[in-house]
């Protein structure tokens, strides 16, 4: 099984530890993982700003760079959702091979335990990022009348000692929104503040999620306000890097 690691731009530059944890987690299951150095951007920013040609060019490049791999795995849910849903139909082979980390662990590897047991005796408040939630069915959105399920909850069941809670307004957006965070900075910050307050009000020590950009945005709000709660990407938790 040839696996190509796709590291979104913001993770590469701003949260390299998340990519390292993802890599080590996959290697922990005995897999060989390659990081193709020619990778750049998946094209989501272009797409979301209306530059469809630019987005298609980026998608075409993405498909070429990852052409030789059976699976493309990434710790970035939002970029994966873009590649999976918004790239040209001609790239359908790429679309169906791209997985967010937890999806890959659950749907392809069908893991029942972690490579190294993790004991994490802490309360964590789950952050269901919108694109994972509503574009990749990571959980049941609160708007829908459907049986409840949550991928993140299921994978956290493999961690010892952890207790999972949700904020009030279980799945409201944190306000990051890609370029929205600079186009509409005041609304973005107001949403981020409300979201952080919601997570903090549960008494949890960590906000755990699968989308690094939301966690980065909430982390910025937390630092500006000097709050105690900490954002934590699920890959870090699953590799025992909870930092607690």
């Amino acid at each position, binding site marked *: 099984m040839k696996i190509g690691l796709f*590291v979104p*731009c913001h*993770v*590469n*530059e*701003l*949260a*390299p530890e998340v*990519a*390292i944890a993802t*890599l080590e987690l996959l290697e922990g299951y005995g897999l060989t993982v390659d*990081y193709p*150095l020619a*990778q*750049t*951007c998946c*094209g989501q*920013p*272009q797409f*979301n*700003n*209306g*530059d*469809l040609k*630019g987005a298609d*060019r*980026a998608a075409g*490049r993405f498909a070429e760079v990852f052409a030789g791999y059976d699976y493309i795995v990434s710790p970035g849910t939002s970029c994966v959702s873009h590649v999976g849903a918004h790239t040209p139909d001609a790239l359908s082979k790429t679309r169906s091979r791209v997985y967010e980390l937890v999806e890959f662990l659950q749907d392809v590897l069908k893991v029942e335990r972690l490579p190294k047991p993790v004991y994490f005796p802490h309360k964590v408040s789950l952050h269901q990022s*919108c694109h994972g939630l*509503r*574009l990749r069915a990571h959980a049941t*959105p609160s*708007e*829908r*009348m459907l049986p409840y399920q949550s991928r993140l909850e299921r994978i956290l069941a493999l961690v010892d000692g952890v207790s999972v809670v949700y904020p009030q*307004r279980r799945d*409201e*957006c944190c*306000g*990051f*929104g*890609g370029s*929205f*965070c*600079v*186009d*509409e*900075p*005041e*609304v*973005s*910050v*107001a*949403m*981020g503040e*409300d979201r952080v307050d919601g997570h903090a009000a549960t008494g949890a020590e960590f906000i755990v999620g699968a989308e690094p950009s939301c966690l980065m*945005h909430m982390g*910025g*709000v937390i630092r*500006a306000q000097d709050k105690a709660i900490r954002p934590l990407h699920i890959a870090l938790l699953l590799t025992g890097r909870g930092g607690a």
Partner: protein
Amino acid sequence: MKDDSIRHPAAAREFLADRERARWHDSAIWWVRQKRDAQMAQLPEWETLRTMAEQIKAHTLSRLDEYLEAFERKAEENGVVVHWAADADEHNRIVHGLLAERGVNKLVKSKSMLTEECGLNPYLEARGVEVIDTDLGERIVQLRHEAPSHIVMPAIHLKKQQISELFERELGTEPGNFDPTYLTHAARANLREHFLSAGAGLTGVNFAIAETGGLVVCTNEGNADLGSALPPLHIACMGLEKLIPRLEHLGVFTRLLARSAIGSPTTTYTSHFHKPRPGGELHVVIVDNGRSEILGREDFYQSLRCIRCGACMNTCPVYRRSSGYSYSYIIPGPIGSTLGPSRDIRKHASMAFACTTCASCDNVCPVRIPLSEQLVAQRARAWQTGALPAGKRAAIGALGVLTRHPALFALAGKTLRKVFPILPAGLAQDNPYSRPGRALPEMPAQSFREWWLQNRKKP
């Protein structure tokens, strides 16, 4: 009428300057979303209903011409006079003509977003007709000379204190009495006089049934019923997308509408009109005003399924934190942000960007309009027509160049990471990301790419 030079980010900043009031606005509207969720939870068939509603509307839109003609035939058989208006101006002329021919100088109106869209009130007022909005929320914004800030709850942006002051000034209520029941009774007494003295009543239309030629109007205050029952002339104005084929389809929509809109199992009044009252007249004005153009657009025709329940506004985290007045089009929130740009992308481009693409609206919408996709598709129109701010275009263009050159891409990232930490604090704050309340991320010493080259790269 609405000032269409509004740009969402600037208006939202202004609204959020009073953070306490903004928080109150957010929670007042979230409360309605929660009521909606509670109603949904009582109907196991909820998702099936949504699918049926979507399909009935999609089917109707695919043969709209046939259903419109069938409706017209049936309505005329019933004694209703049917008028066709190609645009807002023709709509206004028809309504004014009907009033002028009968010497009517006072019109009582129940809620109709269509007449807001057409600017009917100022048109009639300029021609000497007194127009009284009779929905309580609409009456409040009318007395304040404002547009509605929400399509179902027009005065949701106001607190009872503000309404008390307004009524003290306009209706002579007791100073300092904020009691909602007292204020409502005062408005009601005042409106009752207008109902009795008006020469005509105008209502909107929620559903028009092709099979029966019937009109259905859903309200909670009974004002549409008084307005249509007291004066001798009833004018009903509807957009041409309000049709459903048969009476048996109506239940699907009435079950969804009030639950989605206000979290009630039904609207207080669901009134059916088929023919004029004895001695009275019933006229219906069917308005296009840009709708058939939207119907012809592959990317956007789905927005015509909308039943104007307002649920997409209530769930929208941006709407709740910026209010209806931050949007340049008369209909705010997610649905307005596709309808407005469909009408005029240059004027309303900022609405299409007032969205994080969280897609909550897509999931809440009772007729399953893919609203967030439509907004992103409107961004593509903004890009193609040059309606984007120049800076944004340049930034996305530059990203395109970097995307094709991995070495440059890595260099740009590194520069960002290395430069920010050594900037003086003041300068580092001067970027589009940092705001009071949000700090820049910490900049790691090494990128993942650099780490990989050091630790994993096979020679």
